[in-house]
Structures are given as C-alpha cells and as structure tokens.
C-alpha cells in the first residue's frame, strides 16, 4: 500500500513536471508574448520595451526563465499577475470557491440522475426507456455546453422568469436562498455531460455485476429481487464508478470554463479566459498547473478510495 502510494506519487510528480514543461513551452514559444500588452501603449519606444523585457526577465534564454519559474513554483511562489500584480496563488484561490461550488453541485445532480437512468436502463434492458436513455446520452454528449446554457437561460430566465440568467448572487441580497437559486441553472448545464457518461458506464457496470456468482447465489437463496438489486447489484456496480468519477475531472473543468462564461460566474474558468485576453502569462500558467494538479490528485484519490471500498483490490 505504502509502496503503491509512493510509486503513484512519483509518477504524478513526473507527469506534473512534464505538464509544466509543456505549458511553459506553449506559452513562451508562441508569438506575441507577454510584451504584446505594452506594445499597444501609445508612444512606447523600442528602447522602453527592451527595458521592460529586461526588468521582467524576458531577455534571458528560455531554459533559464523556466528554471527560475520552476524553482520559485516549488516553494509556493507562482509569480505575480501581470494585470494587477497580485500573487498568482492568491488570484487563483479567490476564484476557486465559485468553481468548486459549481462542480460539486453539478456532480451531485449528475450522480443522482445518472444513477437513476443507468440503473433503470440496466434493469429494463432493451426497453423503450433504455433506448431513449442510450440515444439521449449520445445526443447529450453532442450538445455544446454553451448552447445548452443559452437554451436553459432562454427557457427558465427569459420565457418563464423562474431563475436568474447568471451571476453568483443578486447584488444587495446575500441570502442563502439567493445563492442557491443562482446555482441551479449553471449546475444543471454543467451536469448534462456527466449525467450521460455516468449513466452509460453505470449501466454497463450493472450488467457486468448481474452475471456474478454471488447474485445467482442470492437469487438461489430466495432473496427478493428488490433486496438483490439494492443490497448487492447497485452497491457493487457503483464501485468501479469511483474511477470513472476521477477520470471525469478534466471534462468537468473544461465544462466549468464554458458554463462560467455563459452564466457570468466568477470562477477559475472565467479567470483563465480573462487572463488569456490580458496575456497574463503567470496566471494562465498557474491555472494550467493548478488544474493538472487537481486532475492528478483526483485520479490518485479515486484509486485509493476504490481500494478502500473494494477489499478485492490489492494495491501494490
């Protein structure tokens, strides 16, 4: 167990290092560069630009710049935002809350709905419901998140006027209900893809479990179908889903960026988009690294949880 953990940690660190090299290369080899913002200022001379580049350390060779950045990152100094000179980690931290709220609430919706659809599809295999769920899941995976967001806004905010069209809360109204109401639409929008994926995998997992000997044993002992379903089938079918949930993190983060844009939600995704617009390299790099850490951590935690939940799995 300890050995497994150490090996996985070492692998994750190696991947993170690769991620940092790729991210740094992408941002710094691209034309334009961090100086692009300054060239737009009227009256800026080449000499001044050179001075700025020197002061920002941009005139040094790339490997040196990378090493400087990497060394500081390891001790928690991720640089300062070009936009407002705030430390990158502080900037990310201040936008993390809304994104996590959105991800957690949409995951809860997705797991509840996806489990219901997946279980029902597996129990009534080849039924009309099952076909609709199968086709519906494939269509759901083909819908652009931003378009679904616009449709939800149109129906629930414009036509029915039930839900707000965006933002974290109504200014001047900080009540819990107000927060919760604002969370509904974006969570549903972000949940769509996860519902589709979750229900498909769970259905397959259910069908795998019903062929197991212990289900036959349970049935042979005369256990009621309902008890078999809830106590044995669903519980066991949910186990491998822990891994699926871990693997969904990158998709969820991508979806969050788009959802946040449509619903003017002040989270990390919007921060990323804004930072790209401002050519704010340290923040862009910081968010890329941060999301990679989240993804790797998610996978690691999923593996550990799976091992903890299923005693048949031996980690070594």
């Amino acid at each position, binding site marked *: 167990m300890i050995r497994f953990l150490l090996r996985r940690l070492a692998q994750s660190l190696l991947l993170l290092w690769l991620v940092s090299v790729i991210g740094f290369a992408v941002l710094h080899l691209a034309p334009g560069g961090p100086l692009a913002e300054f060239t737009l200022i009227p009256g800026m001379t080449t000499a001044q630009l050179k001075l700025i580049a020197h002061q920002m350390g941009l005139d040094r060779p790339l490997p040196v710049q990378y090493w400087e950045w990497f060394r500081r990152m390891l001790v928690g100094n991720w640089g300062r935002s070009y936009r407002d000179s705030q430390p990158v980690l502080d900037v990310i931290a201040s936008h993390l809350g809304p994104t996590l709220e959105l991800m957690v609430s949409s995951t809860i919706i997705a797991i509840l709905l996806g489990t219901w659809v997946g279980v029902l599809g597996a129990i009534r295999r080849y039924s009309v419901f099952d*076909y609709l769920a199968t086709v519906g899941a494939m269509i759901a995976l083909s819908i652009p998140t931003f378009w679904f967001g616009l449709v939800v806004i149109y129906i629930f905010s414009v036509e029915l006027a039930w839900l707000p069209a965006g933002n974290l809360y109504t200014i001047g109204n900080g009540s819990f209900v107000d927060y919760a109401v604002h969370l509904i639409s974006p969570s549903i929008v972000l949940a769509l893809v996860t519902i589709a994926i979750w229900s498909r995998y769970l259905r397959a997992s259910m069908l795998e479990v019903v062929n197991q000997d212990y289900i036959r044993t349970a049935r042979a002992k005369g256990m009621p179908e309902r008890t078999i379903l809830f106590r044995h089938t669903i519980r066991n079918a949910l186990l491998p889903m822990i891994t699926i949930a871990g693997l969904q993190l990158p998709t969820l983060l991508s979806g969050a960026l*788009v959802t946040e844009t449509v619903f003017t939600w002040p989270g990390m995704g919007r921060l990323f988009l804004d930072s790209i617009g401002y050519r704010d390299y340290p923040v862009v790099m910081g968010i890329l690294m941060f999301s990679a850490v989240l993804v790797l951590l998610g996978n690691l935690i999923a593996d550990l949880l799976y091992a903890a939940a299923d005693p048949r799995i031996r980690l070594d």
Partner: protein
Amino acid sequence: MAVAADITPRESPKRRARNRALARFVRHRLALFGLGAIIVLVLLCAVGPYLWPYNDLRIDISHRFAVPFMSAHILGADALGRDLFARLMIAGRVSLTVGFAAMAISTVIGTLVGTVAGYFGGAVGSMLMRFVDAVLCFPSIFLLLALAAFVQPNLFTITLVIAATAWMEVARVVEAQIRSLRERDFALAARVLGASDAHIMFRELLPNAIAPIVVASTLNVARAILLEAYVSFLGYGIQPPTPSWGNMLNNAQEYLATAPWLALLPGLFIILAVTGFNFVGDGLRDALDPRLDIT
C-alpha cells in the same frame, strides 16, 4: 460478455432474442441516420450557397432580426439583417472543413506516435506515452485556448490547434493495438525474413490496426467540430465576418430575449453534425469489432 443474463429472469429467451435483434436494428438505424445527416449537411453546405439567393455577408439593415418562416429569409436574419440560412451554410463549410482536416491531422499524429511507441516499447515507448498522459492532464478547453490565443486565428491555424489537442486518444488506441500485434507470429515471421522496422510497423502491423483507428477518427471529427465551436464561441477561433457555427453564437446571448433563433439555429446544426459523426462512429465500432456484443 457473450450471453448476458438479464436481471429479470422471468423474461422468455424468445423475447430476449427478438429484443436483441431490435437492438441491432435500432443501433444500425442510428448509424444510418447519422450518415444521412452528414451527407445532407455536406451537400447543403457545399452546394446550397450557390442556389440560395442571399449572400452570407450582405447587410440589409431593413430586415434585421427578421423572424424565421415569416419572410423570404426563411430562417430569419441577424442583427445586421444578414440572411441566417446563407450564414449557416457558409459556417457549415468552415466548421465541417475544420472538423475533417483536424481529424486527418490528429489521426496521422496519433497513429505515428502510437505506432512508434507501441512497436519500440521500452524507454522510447514509455517516454512517448508519458508525454501523451501529460497532455491529457490539461482540461482540453484550457489547452485549446492557451494555444489558440497565441496564434493568428484563421482556418489553418485553428485546425492545427484543434488537431494538437485531439491526437492523444488515437495514440493510446494505436499504441495498445500495435503492442499486442507486435507479439503475433506474422510479425515475428516478418522480422525473421529481415524486414526493416519501418516495413513491419507500417506494412505488417498498422493495416491490422485499421479498424480501431477508423472508429477513433470518426469520433474525432465529432470532437473537432465541437472544439471548433467552443473556441470560436469563446472568441479565439474563426474570426468574424467569416461565420462558423461556433462564432455565430458569440453575440447571440445579447439577443436571447428578442431573437432567440440566432442562438438556437446554429446550435441545432452543430448538434446534428456532431450526433451524426458520433452515431456513425458508434455503428462502426459495433460493425468492426466482432468481439463486442451489442449492449
């Protein structure tokens, strides 16, 4: 799972067999529907603009926000009075071209990386595959935006950028295939006969891995069309006035209350194209993989 027992054992075998046949038929029909949708869309976008009286860029301010089905602008007009149907067809050319081209490029990159990694294995293979893993650590939209924001956006660069974020799945599929094919007798025979590595890789092994590549690249077209829509919607893809299904939506949100069709219609075209490729890809997977039972 060749013969999967149903959860409800009361169901008669006869009914189950009939239902499975039905499942095959429906699955097949979905693939046919997908193919049909793709053909119709491609024809519409390729030929349609020549037959349609309106130009996609012609501004006609007196007809701005024309409502669909109410005038000669059959699908309505946008904020500048440009005909929406004409724009959707031209946008379709852009989006479908990006989809196909990005698929082709990402398939070539993915196949090359996967073949080399799978064939040589060892240090080279694991280095290449770790690189694939590392790229997959980035949420795709984040990577796509980071790349797209720093290039001069046009059809060519956006296609390259999308291909650069979509080749990893193909590489994984191909690597797994080649790694197992390498151990087969025919590969060994080729090696004994003195065939070069390149010959074994591309002449002996790769043709046997074509089926999963075809499936993966069909699904990749769907993915590329979606990614183009995302990046264009977010403002870093195909730039106006050239329409693409994605960028037609980027100021549609402003007019959601007064002209909702501006947001709805491009999205429906995207969904039609993407489901089309997804259905075909899924059908191909069922058709090409004999081990897979239809579930």
